[in-house]
């Protein structure tokens, strides 16, 4: 089912909507948000210089650092009193990225997530179980509102306690699962261990996956666990751009449809900032066309993809983005949580018993991401007993957990044994499978 008429309009119709909204949005940001105005003034640009969609490329970029520099409300275009929701996600260092939504923003966000659900095959008859962690993360509440709007019955089971999740799934007759793809695989395996056959004893037929990329091998694994007729799609978004709802795969599995009447995508060369033609690989840049509370103009996502404008077999005419093939920065996504190595470094530097060098290894074991961190012991006074060394490892782990919200295995190693780098350090080894392409 195609939810909105904008998903099938002609290119000319879409561009007409986009241009009208872009002009309005740039004017709004210029008038209401001081950092946008000063960036545009520096570039000698005024809102009336936006005469066509081609003029978009002249506007300055917005980056994650802008959120930190204007923490918490500096990028808001309306007083916080006019916001009806606030979310936050982990930032590169220290301060989180804070986002706010007006009532109108909530309606638009819900609309785009509803489309994502419909793209993935959901209908009003579905019983949806949302296994994303509820809280400041936009994923859970985003999908929650979208699925409710679609008319599905939503069970906000949140994350954790897999056995209980599976009990609900069985007893409620859940037909649709919202989770990170790795958690869905983990659930399937736990179900088997509990003596449940996911294909016979459970009714789940649709998986809407997000929070992290789903690789093609993971999708194949998904079919093995949940059945060949399982509809496994992924969708994409980030809190700076509302959250989920920016784009999602349709059942043709030929890339993620971008809701272009709300978001204009561009792909740029991450080094030069130059806009690349359709089909070329580069960093995705998104301009939000309907965000009133927190306008986002040319936001650099740091995700690497390609764009395709040919109409899709599913009947939609919206631009599609290829499944992500990496990042232009060093952000890691571990169990759906964004982690920057700099965050880890900050924590480690505050612990005097260990040195400043570290090595991060990310692996996928039994479908769950695990992170282990090697740190060098430099404090000889810790050598009194094994208990003391274990306590130190526990302390490092606890400090990391409270900052990242993630568990990491800590390995103490002898000083001087970790690699030293001149120039750009490569401290992260990601042993998870490379992301596959769809079409």
């Amino acid at each position, binding site marked *: 089912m195609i939810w909105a008429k904008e998903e099938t309009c002609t290119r000319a119709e879409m561009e007409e909507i986009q241009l009208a909204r872009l002009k309005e949005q740039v004017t709004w940001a210029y008038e209401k948000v001081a950092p946008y105005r000063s960036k545009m003034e520096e570039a000698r640009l005024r809102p009336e210089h936006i005469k066509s969609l081609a003029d978009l490329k002249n506007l300055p970029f917005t980056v994650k650092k802008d959120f930190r520099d204007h923490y918490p409300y500096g990028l808001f275009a309306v007083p916080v009193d006019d916001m009806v929701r606030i979310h936050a996600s982990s930032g590169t260092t220290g301060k989180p990225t804070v986002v706010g939504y007006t009532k109108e923003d909530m309606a638009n966000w819900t609309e785009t997530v509803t489309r994502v659900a419909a793209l993935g095959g959901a209908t009003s008859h579905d019983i949806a179980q949302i296994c994303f962690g509820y809280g400041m993360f936009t994923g859970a509440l985003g999908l929650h509102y979208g699925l409710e709007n679609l008319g599905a019955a939503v069970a906000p089971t949140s994350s954790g306690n897999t056995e209980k999740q599976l009990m609900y799934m069985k007893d409620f007759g859940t037909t649709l699962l919202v989770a990170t793809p790795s958690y869905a695989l983990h659930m399937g395996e736990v179900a088997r261990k509990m003596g449940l056959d996911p294909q016979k004893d459970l009714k789940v037929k649709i998986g809407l996956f997000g929070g992290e990329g789903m690789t093609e091998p993971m999708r194949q694994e998904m079919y093995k666990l949940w059945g060949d007729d399982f509809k496994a799609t992924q969708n994409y978004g980030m809190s700076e751009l509302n959250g989920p709802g920016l784009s999602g795969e349709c059942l043709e599995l030929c890339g993620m449809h971008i809701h272009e009447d709300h978001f204009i995508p561009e792909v740029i060369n991450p080094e030069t900032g130059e806009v690349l033609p359709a089909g070329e690989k580069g960093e995705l840049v998104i301009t939000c066309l309907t965000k009133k509370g927190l306008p986002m103009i040319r936001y650099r996502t740091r995700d690497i993809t390609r764009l395709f404008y040919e109409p899709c077999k599913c009947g939609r005419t919206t631009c599609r983005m290829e499944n992500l093939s990496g990042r232009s920065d060093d952000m890691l996504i571990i169990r759906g949580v964004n982690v920057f190595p700099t965050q880890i470094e900050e924590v480690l530097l505050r612990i005097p018993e260990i040195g400043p060098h570290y090595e991060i290894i990310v692996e996928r074991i039994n479908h769950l991401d695990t992170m282990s961190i090697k740190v060098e*012991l*430099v*404090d*000889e*006074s*810790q*050598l*009194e*007993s*094994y208990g003391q*060394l274990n306590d130190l490892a526990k302390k490092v782990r606890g400090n990391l957990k409270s900052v990242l919200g993630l568990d990491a295995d800590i*390995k*103490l*190693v*002898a*000083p*001087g*044994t970790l690699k030293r780098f001149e120039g750009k350090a490569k401290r992260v080894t990601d042993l998870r499978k490379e992301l596959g392409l769809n079409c």
Partner: protein
Amino acid sequence: MVKQLSVFVENEVGSLAKVTRVLRENNISIRAIASFDSPEFGILRLMVDKTGEAKRVLTENGFIVKLTDVVAIELVDKPGELDRVMWILADARLEINYIYSFVLRGQSEPLMLMNLDRMEEAEKVLMENGVMVTEKLTQE
């Protein structure tokens, strides 16, 4: 009490050899050595003839080394001797963290080294019970 060396070693091939090489190259003789299996890292405990020098050269070679105290006792070489000592400590409710023995051959009587939470108390109770507690084993 006497001083032993505690050296941090990783649980991997060759990690002890790296320590012994430094000692060999500096002509330091090992009197006793102990290491226990542990999943990821280990603490190698050593009694050597030149403790201070050993710490210096190991540290210079990038090792993390700490001097720690152990109680050293001389035993009579006959069955039941260690048992007697263990019961003295057990009756005094003194907990042993680890224990290992001396490898020096020329010496007539065996030596045991042990680490406890309350070492001074242990020495006192051992001496009171007639156990030979040694204060000086190595030259400094």
